[in-house]
């Protein structure tokens, strides 16, 4: 199959993720959007690895998965903390620091 389709899907996923970050205020959803962005990159990498035939792309994918997992851990901790302190998941609520 034409490899370009993989890239297209990947780019779309990335864009959807990005737009989600911009539009959603719920921290959890926002967070899922970031994961979506990371995984769309994984798709690109995997497709490219298939195209080039080397191991580099696949190795990269593994590491991205690890990093994404670590980000989940940290991100969830922060969100839990936000919820306990403020009783909300709205990322626009913390606004003590600005200007």
């Amino acid at each position, binding site marked *: 199959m034409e490899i370009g389709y993989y890239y297209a899907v990947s780019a779309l996923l990335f864009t959807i993720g990005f737009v989600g*970050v*911009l539009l959603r205020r719920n921290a959890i959803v926002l967070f899922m959007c970031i994961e979506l962005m990371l995984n769309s990159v994984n798709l690109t990498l995997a497709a490219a690895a298939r195209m080039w035939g080397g191991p580099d792309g696949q190795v990269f994918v593994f590491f991205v998965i690890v990093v994404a997992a670590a980000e989940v851990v940290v991100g969830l901790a922060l969100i839990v903390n936000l919820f306990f302190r403020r009783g909300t998941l709205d990322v626009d609520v913390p606004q003590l620091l600005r*200007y």
Partner: protein
Amino acid sequence: MILLAAEGSTVTNEVITTTSGVIGIAWLIPIVPLLGFVAVLLLTRSLMDRAAYVAIGASAVAFLLSVGVALQVLGDPATYVRPLPTWIDVGGFTVTYDLYIDQLTAVMLLVVTGVALLVHIYSVGYMEGDPRYERFFAYLNLFLASMLILVLGANLLTLFLGWELVGLSSYLLIGFWFEKPEFASAAKKAFITNRVGDVSFMIAMFLAFATFGTLGFTEMFAQTDTLATTTAFALILLLFGGAAAKSAQIPLYVWLPDAMAGPTPVSALIHAATMVTAGVYLAVRMSPVLIVSVPGMVIIAWIGALTALLAALIAMRQNDIKKVLAYSTVSQLGYMFMAIGVGAFRESIFHLVTHAFFKGLLFLVAGSVIHAMANRTDIWRMGGLRTAMPVTFWTALIGWLAISGVPPFAGFFSKDQILTEAYLHGYGPIWIIGLIVAVLTAFYMSRWFFLIFLGAPRFGDEVLPHESPRSMTVPLIVLAVLSAVGGLLLNPIHDGPFYRTLGPAVGDITDIGYEPFGSLTEPVLIPLAILAAVVGIGVAYLFYVRRDVSMGELAEPIRGPVAELEEHAFYVDAAYESIFVRFGGAVARAFAWFDANVVDGVVRGAGAVAVVIGRSSRGIQTGLVRSYVAAFLAGALAIVAVVLVQVR
């Protein structure tokens, strides 16, 4: 004529790298005051007031070492380079801490350390009882060290190091009595104005490096033959931009009068004798580059002349004992730049030296008077101090005559020689401005002197003027003696010993080929200069001694009743009335207004512009994390767009 023989000394200095003799330990000259600064700060607790003596000792050592260096240089004239460790060395850009010692350095060293030593001693009496007495001496030492680094540096960057450090210590000293609000604003104004100059200086350094591939004086001067005139022109103007800020020239002179908020010994040392002359020193040091572009020099000459005139006009209407001297300093600095601009480098330095003597003296006199008058500074509320303060009076008399240009005092020689030189180099209009400024100088300084020391006392009974303590009068006497005989001894005639000594250290103007402005010769020019002084003093005498000044500021002639004017309305009086008082006063007030509203406004406005830009763009920082991400998107799209367009 004697004079033409003096034109351009063809003798040039040989460059000698040495570590022998006093020059070998010349690096101690700035280090000792620096150690003094640290020591005073550290010892304040244990030594209390006596810590001041450490500072005085340090400046005395610096002075003695300077004398040693001067003797070695003058004994065997040459340009000595004392190699010292490297400061910065990165990819072909090498800057060392080397010292550069020639005749010009020797003169500057003697003036700086000499005046500094006297001011240190003077401050013992003047600052007595101040809660931060020791701190003051520490700062004085810091300033001295910085100034010496400036004078000794063998490249533009080391000079700039000293340049910034003198600025820094000057802010510390201007703001020394920071309890009073005007001091803070004065320090700020000085800082901002000087930053403007620094930018110009820095750009000049980059240009110099780009042109010469080095910042070292010896290496730069060796390449002046191949220097393009246009590059030299740009370089001169940029350097002058830096010098104009430090030496208070149009349009950057505004900070100096405000800086008088600091203690008076500081005004004497920093804002009259040494720091403000750093710009003059810089220009003369770079004179081998200056002579490459005569148009650049002409601009300097004109700015100097206009500064001299403007400041003299303003000084005529100042009523604060120190403000008069401050504007006078600006005016005299203008004289020095005027001299540089017309190619009279040695004359400029000569005037720098005599000015350090008499202006230092006059500021110390002012300090002594303020001390005696319980911190009053309005000259209209003084008068008749002659009897109460005999030493101050006699030394002030000498200082007054010296600055007014009355022979045989120091100021006469230096000022006259600048005027003569301007005429003989063909700058007629500048020569005329110089003559007018000479008249004005004699006038406002006489006004200052008469109002303070002559006539009947115009202060109340609550002030009991008294002579200052010995530690203050001794420096006065020393400076008075120097002001009296300094000119005569150093350089009574053109091509005197001072010029012959200094000649090889400054740029050679023989190739420029100056033509005299007219056919007048020295026997005519010198009496003209003397006449200028006499006229100025005479008019002031009519106004401020012969007339009743007991009503204070109201007695200023322009404000007097018409009848009183007519009483003195013989021809000369009337003419000068209109020139000096009507016109001059109006101009002076106009400029004072300009200074207070426009220039101050610009200085404050520069800050305000920054604030406005900051205020208007802080809205970007919404605090909303998603808007920050949106900025990513915008930035990313912009970059992608730019990159894609370029890839095409």
